[in-house]
């Protein structure tokens, strides 16, 4: 059955599929190397007004900083294909990282869409939280306000909630939501 094919790989409560990718500094990033730490995946495209809203308000950077202080690994996954105007070359990405003061463990150059398709990332932003044992515990929207023009600090942030619950040893209150945003600009 073709309909359910790619949805099967990623499932809450199951091991998050491992991947090996290259970041914008040319370094190899392997998900399973981060076992023992909480990992957040962010599907990213700052030209998307939904993503951009989180960065231009500074709310995302605050969240990232907060997560970094808690020892959380934050991986940005940019799956925009090279022919799209929103694509970033490694140099442009480094510049953007600095300009926007983004705090991330790594920015994965996924212009081939491999990681995006593996996780069935639909939108930017589409967020994933993986616990210390490599189990996927959250998949979906970053918060409960699908609006490109709000202050994200006033919304219920599902990623923060999931990480806080993990740190407190409690079950993640909301494990799955419908991601909102712009479509990921995959190569055809």
């Amino acid at each position: 059955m073709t309909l359910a094919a790619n949805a099967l790989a990623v499932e809450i409560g199951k091991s998050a599929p491992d991947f090996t990718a290259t970041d914008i500094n040319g370094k190899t990033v392997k998900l399973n190397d981060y076992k023992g730490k909480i990992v957040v995946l962010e599907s990213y495209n700052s030209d998307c007004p939904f993503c951009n809203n989180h960065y231009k308000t500074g709310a995302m950077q605050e969240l990232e900083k907060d997560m970094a202080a808690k020892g959380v690994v934050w991986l940005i996954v940019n799956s925009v294909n090279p022919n799209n105007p929103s694509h970033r070359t490694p140099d442009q990405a480094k510049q953007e990282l600095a300009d926007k003061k983004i705090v991330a463990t790594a920015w994965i150059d996924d212009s081939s869409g491999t990681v995006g398709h593996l996780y069935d990332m639909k939108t930017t932003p589409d967020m994933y939280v993986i616990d210390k044992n490599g189990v996927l515990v959250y998949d979906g929207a970053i918060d409960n306000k699908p609006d490109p023009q709000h202050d994200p600090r006033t919304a219920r942030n599902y990623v923060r909630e999931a990480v806080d619950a993990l740190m407190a040893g409690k079950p993640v209150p909301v494990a799955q939501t419908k991601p909102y945003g712009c479509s990921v600009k995959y190569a055809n």
Partner: protein
Amino acid sequence: MGTGSRCALLAGFFCLAVFTAHAAHTQVRLILSASTARPGDTVLASVDLKMEPDWHTYWKNPGAAGLATKIEWQLPPGVTAGEIQWPLPEKLPPAEVTTYGYDDEVVLLVPLKLAPDLKPGPLDLKAKVSWLECKEACIPGSGSVETMLNVGTETKPSADAALIESWQGKVPKSAENWSVRAGWEKPASGDTRPIIIAGSYVGAMAAEWSDKFDFFPDANDDFEIQAAIEKVSDTNSFFCFRKIVKKYSGDWPKEISGVIVAGTGNSRFGFEVKLTVSEQAPTDETVLLGSNTGETPVPLSQPLWQMLLYAFIGGLILNIMPCVLPVIALKILGFVGESRSDPRHVRKLGLVYALGVLVSFAALAAVVIGVKAAGHKAGWGMQFSSPVFVVCLTTLVTLVALNLFGVFEVTLGGRALDAAGGLASKHGAAGAFFNGVLATVLATPCTAPFLSIALGFAFAQKAPVILLMFLAVGVGLVAPYVVLSWNPAWLKFLPKPGAWMEKFKIAMGFPMLATAVWLFNLAAGSYGKSVLWLGVFLVVVAFAAWIFGEFVQRGRARKGLALVIALILLVGGYAFALENQLRWREPVKEADATGSLKESADGIDWQRWNPEAVAKARADGHPVLVDFTADWCLTCQVNKKTSIEIPSVHAKLKSLNAIALLGDYTRFPDNITAELNRFNRAGVPLVLVYPKDAAASPIVLPEILTPGIVLAALDRAAR
């Protein structure tokens, strides 16, 4: 006019530089269906969004990405805005992130209700419209729009009325004359689950419809019905397709809503539906109302009271099904015995009998609920798949027969030695209760008309509904007796009590003995040739019963010795025959035979049923007859003898080059339970005829067959 659209008018290209603040690619304006309207009128206000080529805005459910357009009204007092009426959107690529939206232009319609006491004069209508426009990138846009409406003494259409009317035609209508059903195809796999949506046009057909159908769901936070679509079959239903539902939170949805879209290009149309999601995928029978399958189709959204009524009628009919008849004999005897008692006593016994049946049905329901809770499949009559149960019941029924023959007397309730003695002992309260239990136990291998529909429904429900449905069957089963016991006058046709009763009682022992033989035959299926030892055990039990009756109950001396001998016989017979020889608790596994299951040399050449065999036979272009049956299912056996395993059907199968498949449900194989569930049945019989045309749906035959029904279905299948 908003800054965004003005900007677009000036120079779209330069606007790219400031795209986050302004909508560069969409013009927006507010138009009205009327320039002048009367107080109390409803005017259609419309937000007209014009997108540049390749840019689009979104529907109320944007799909996997995007954002629905929003309208915030600023209206003078006395004017209230209704919901947005959304014209039919398009599915927008890419396939992996499908969205629903509009290319080029869309007119969103909003009814504005004018209060009846509105004063004449001009009204200023304002709204802030915000949207997301996308091409390769997405840009949030917004614009403030306003227009004037004159309130006067007559209604005058505006210059835009025709445009608005044309867009009104694109708004989905209500689903008149369409029968649409939705149901889960399979259990969930993780957080996704396939759903089947099927529908048919039930009115007179006006024109040729396109075969392009789709379902655009309403937005929902808890689940998403994904845009990808797979056509299943459009042979009997107008459309039938599969979608994947992805769940985010909560239970699997019980109801879905959205728009069924048909056709392509300019001839597209849509209608709104709100569908109850049933636990089974819709079949042609549930979609095509009034299909001639020999059975009234039961829409799965049938209300509970109707199902309870079916259960009640099914219970009533159970009384005359072959498996319950021996118990009827017992009951008739009971009434005759009691007709000399005072009416209050008769009523009491009627109620106790009813209690016995209802308690048994409640116990059955509890077993079903327990089996379901343990994650197994439950079915009607499933206790007969247990050889241990069959051995116990065979022994019990043999004892009941011996009891009727007068070999010994039942001591239920300790009334055997009562001075009244005789028949009263067997028709006291305990006897009546026991009759109720026995009636229920013997009723389970039968299903009656109505009952299979009701049970098919019941087995898929939650615990309280299962219990309620079972009790309804029980109430149906006891209703005639309770009514009779309340009106003993109706029993006047029976002769006066007398010596004939003793003879009648003995005569009734024979149907009971026949029941024992039938049960014995069931046990043979589990134990093979060793079933001989069950027979030996029954003889020993009968002998012990006689010693007990003759020398303990009716004897004068050495009662103790007789009792000891009876007990030694029982225990010895059990230990040797059942434990040592029969090994009754570990029946031999039935060999998994393959190939022909022919009953006799000139019988139908049955092959073992499995889904692959059906698929293969259909792929090869054969019609297929499938008989789901079980040794313990009397209805099935009767069907087979009268209507299936007969020369005319055999000849018909040969002439049509049809394949006959036998699904043996005696031991409750899971794959057959699943197949029965697919047809909303809780048990056998289920007889299906698959048409030669591999895409057509199977014909479901009724529970009780006649040769005519089978032959007609086969003829239909060959077409």
